[in-house]
């Protein structure tokens, strides 16, 4: 009898030709909170999906209570007592809150038909015990992201699982909600549940985890007791080397106003957003996921035009109704979700880069291959995109290279105002540093940059000023000097209006 309730040995997983897990081993003890740490793309989510039967490993073994198991699908894992909260939200938008909690295992009567009354009463009890107040009959579609996350948590808890996996459960919760969640996690741990916990916030890890396993580039690095490690140790383990300068921000004297936003509102999404963005300035936008930052960016870029308020570009008031118009005004927007909004995965690098300004490579609508090719090539080379040729399909590139293609695409439009939405999400540290250096250089050249980021170090390291949003409202605006992690978190989780004069 080993000490582990769950043990992974040499797990390997390939997608297509790319191996994303190289022989990862991992042991989980009953009654512990075991943090899984690693950069984006280190293989944490894949590992979890192997455990829960969504992916089948290409090599290695899984032992559950010393018995080797093989999960063909998530149902088998669930029946074996494994529950999970996934990073990507996995609710059915057309079903209501209560049913989402009990999806696939609704309580039934003796005759086998669903007992709706029992379902609602149990859902009610569960949510109450979690301290969440939601309309049980509201469709999941109508919930905020934080509310959805609560439902996911309720679902995972309701399984009474022996092993509970939580992949970034706190990414859009307020401090108070996080504290409540941790209370529950500790309670479950004390009752003997083994918990795998993933978070990007190292502080949280120190607060709640007992042991920590670090993954890097799909390989196992080390497992430590949390009380024996320091923050710096963990970062070194994660990154594998010391990065001399992850945030190479140059000091640039801000120029004239490039973008001025006044009383910008989008009914029901955000309201009364005011800021100025100067040439050569990087304005960071901080806040929780779902705070409305992306919506502000989308409104400025004309994807979903604002319902009221004004936008001035270089002193001229404009009404931006479409991205096309925004592009012609010198705006560029690198969206948050690469797969969904940034990239055309099934088209080649050239076509991706040339798309926003395709007309420039055409004569009366007929494409001029040579012009397109050379422009795309120089853009790709400048961004150091690693690929066999510029005809390679975008979907075959790694995450970091995809992001470089998206950046190359937008930089080739020669923007004067650049909006970067989570510019370094899901890319390796090397590329991350390169992107930061690029931002700094662009700012030095006088481009105005609005950067949305959920990574506080990035916000603090790269921004000249920092704007904080919470639930669709602007709650703070700090200068680089006065901003601290604590101040930003508190502004991002509290509705107190502390907008300062500019």
């Amino acid at each position, binding site marked *: 009898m080993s000490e582990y309730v769950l043990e992974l040995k040499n797990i390997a997983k390939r997608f297509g030709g790319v191996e994303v897990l190289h022989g990862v081993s991992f042991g989980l003890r009953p009654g512990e909170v075991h943090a899984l740490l690693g950069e984006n793309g280190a293989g944490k989510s894949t590992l979890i999906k192997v455990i*829960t039967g*969504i992916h089948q490993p290409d090599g290695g073994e899984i032992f559950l209570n010393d018995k080797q198991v093989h999960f063909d*699908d*998530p*149902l*088998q*894992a*669930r*029946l074996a007592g494994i529950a*999970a909260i*996934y990073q*990507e*939200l*996995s*609710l*059915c*938008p*057309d*079903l209501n809150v209560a*049913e989402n909690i009990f*999806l*696939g*295992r*609704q309580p*039934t009567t003796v005759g*086998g*038909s*669903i007992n*709706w009354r029992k379902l609602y009463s149990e859902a009610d009890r569960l949510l109450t015990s979690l301290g969440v107040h939601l309309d049980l009959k509201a469709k999941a579609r*109508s919930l905020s992201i934080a509310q959805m996350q609560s439902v996911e948590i309720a*679902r995972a808890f309701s399984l009474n699982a022996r092993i509970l996996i939580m992949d970034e459960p706190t990414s859009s919760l307020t401090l108070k909600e996080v504290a409540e969640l941790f209370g529950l996690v500790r309670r479950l741990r004390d009752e003997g549940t083994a918990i795998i916990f993933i978070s990007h916030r190292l502080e949280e890890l120190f607060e709640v985890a007992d042991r920590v396993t670090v993954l890097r580039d799909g390989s196992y690095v080390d497992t430590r007791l949390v009380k024996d490690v320091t923050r710096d140790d963990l970062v070194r383990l994660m990154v594998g080397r010391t990065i001399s300068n992850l945030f190479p921000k140059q000091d640039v004297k801000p120029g004239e106003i490039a973008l001025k936003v006044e009383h910008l509102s989008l*009914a*029901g*999404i955000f309201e009364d957003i005011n800021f100025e963005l100067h040439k050569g300035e990087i304005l960071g936008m901080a806040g929780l996921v779902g705070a409305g930052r992306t919506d502000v960016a989308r409104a400025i870029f004309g994807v979903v035009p604002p*319902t*009221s308020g004004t936008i001035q570009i270089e002193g001229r008031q404009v009404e931006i109704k479409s991205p096309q118009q925004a592009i012609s005004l010198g705006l560029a927007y690198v969206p948050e979700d690469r797969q969904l909004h940034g990239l055309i995965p099934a088209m080649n690098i050239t076509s991706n880069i040339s798309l926003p300004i395709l007309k420039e490579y055409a004569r009366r609508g007929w494409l001029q291959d040579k012009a397109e090719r050379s422009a795309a090539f120089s853009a790709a080379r400048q961004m150091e995109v690693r690929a066999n040729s510029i005809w390679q399909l975008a979907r075959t590139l790694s995450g970091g290279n995809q992001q470089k293609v998206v950046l190359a695409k937008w930089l080739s439009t020669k923007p004067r105002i650049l909006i970067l939405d989570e510019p370094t999400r899901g890319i390796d540290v090397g590329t991350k540093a390169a992107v930061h250096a690029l931002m700094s250089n662009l700012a030095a050249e006088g481009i105005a940059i609005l950067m949305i980021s959920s990574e506080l170090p990035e916000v603090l390291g790269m921004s000249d000023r920092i704007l904080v949003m919470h639930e669709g409202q602007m709650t703070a605006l700090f200068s680089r000097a006065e901003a601290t992690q604590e101040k930003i978190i508190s502004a991002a989780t509290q509705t107190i209006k502390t907008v300062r004069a500019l």
Partner: protein
Amino acid sequence: MTVKTPTASRSNLLLTLTRYREFGIILIIIILAVIVTLRAPVFLTLGNFRDILLDISILVIVALAQTMVILTHGIDLSVGSVIGLVAMMVAFTIKANPTIPLVVVVLLGMALGAILGSFNGLIIAIGKVPPIIATLGTLSIYRGMIFLYSKGYWIPPFQLPDTFKLLSKGTFLGIPHIIIFAIVVAILVYYFLNYTRTGRDIYAVGSNPDAAQYVGIRKQRIIFLVYVLTGIAAGLAGVLWASRFESSQTNTALGFELQTVAASIVGGVSISGGVGTVPGVLLGALLLGMINNSVTLVRISPFWEQAAQGLLILIAVVSDILIMRRVQRNKSK
């Protein structure tokens, strides 16, 4: 455009009304009924209502099954051909064996339909062929098989025994059997979709396939199942069709698939999956039946019938989407 917050009371009223997606279609049904009754009072008689129900019974049976397919973000274009093939095979079997018990006939039809449906399910769920392509193909294949099977002949009324004709025409407590079949199917589907886990899984798979898989729902099985169920319903419909029309021809139920899709869509089923109710589809079928019925009753030139039908389908879906959009906008305030 500046949008001011609408007054709470107004938005609440709208919300409550439209929480039931059937609201819009009921409105259209009432308006249509009033207009038609003014022109042709016979419309609002029990006898006429019975005839409308007779007319839509088979449509209801198949449209409800079609709805299950559409709920999973699929579509089954082969139902018309399945009905035709089953009707033909059943009719020939009865012609050869007039003494065969009706129960066996019905079960035979459903079994044949299940097999044809399972072929659809196989190439869609396991073979990963997009539903519209797969069933477009089987639409042609099954229709061609009718011809291969019948060698171009048809079964005229006098070759079918009276007992078989009574399967649909006979009455129970004054209600024609065929209507009872439709009611039973509607109740079964309603129960299945709302009170069984498998039924809820259908919604889950259509609403968010990945999420459904994460919670352990076997997506492929559910998708396979809905096509088999649709096959069974189409098989039953084939038997009833042969019985009601006392014959079976090579073009039986030709083009019927689009009517079933129309009934579902008009009834508020979302083509992108996950949304749709049994009462909605029943109302959708009723509306289509009423349009057919009233165009003849109001003595509009028969040439207007199809145009009116097309226009009303468009009005129904456009008004539905506009109402939903307004509701969503108000709700998000």
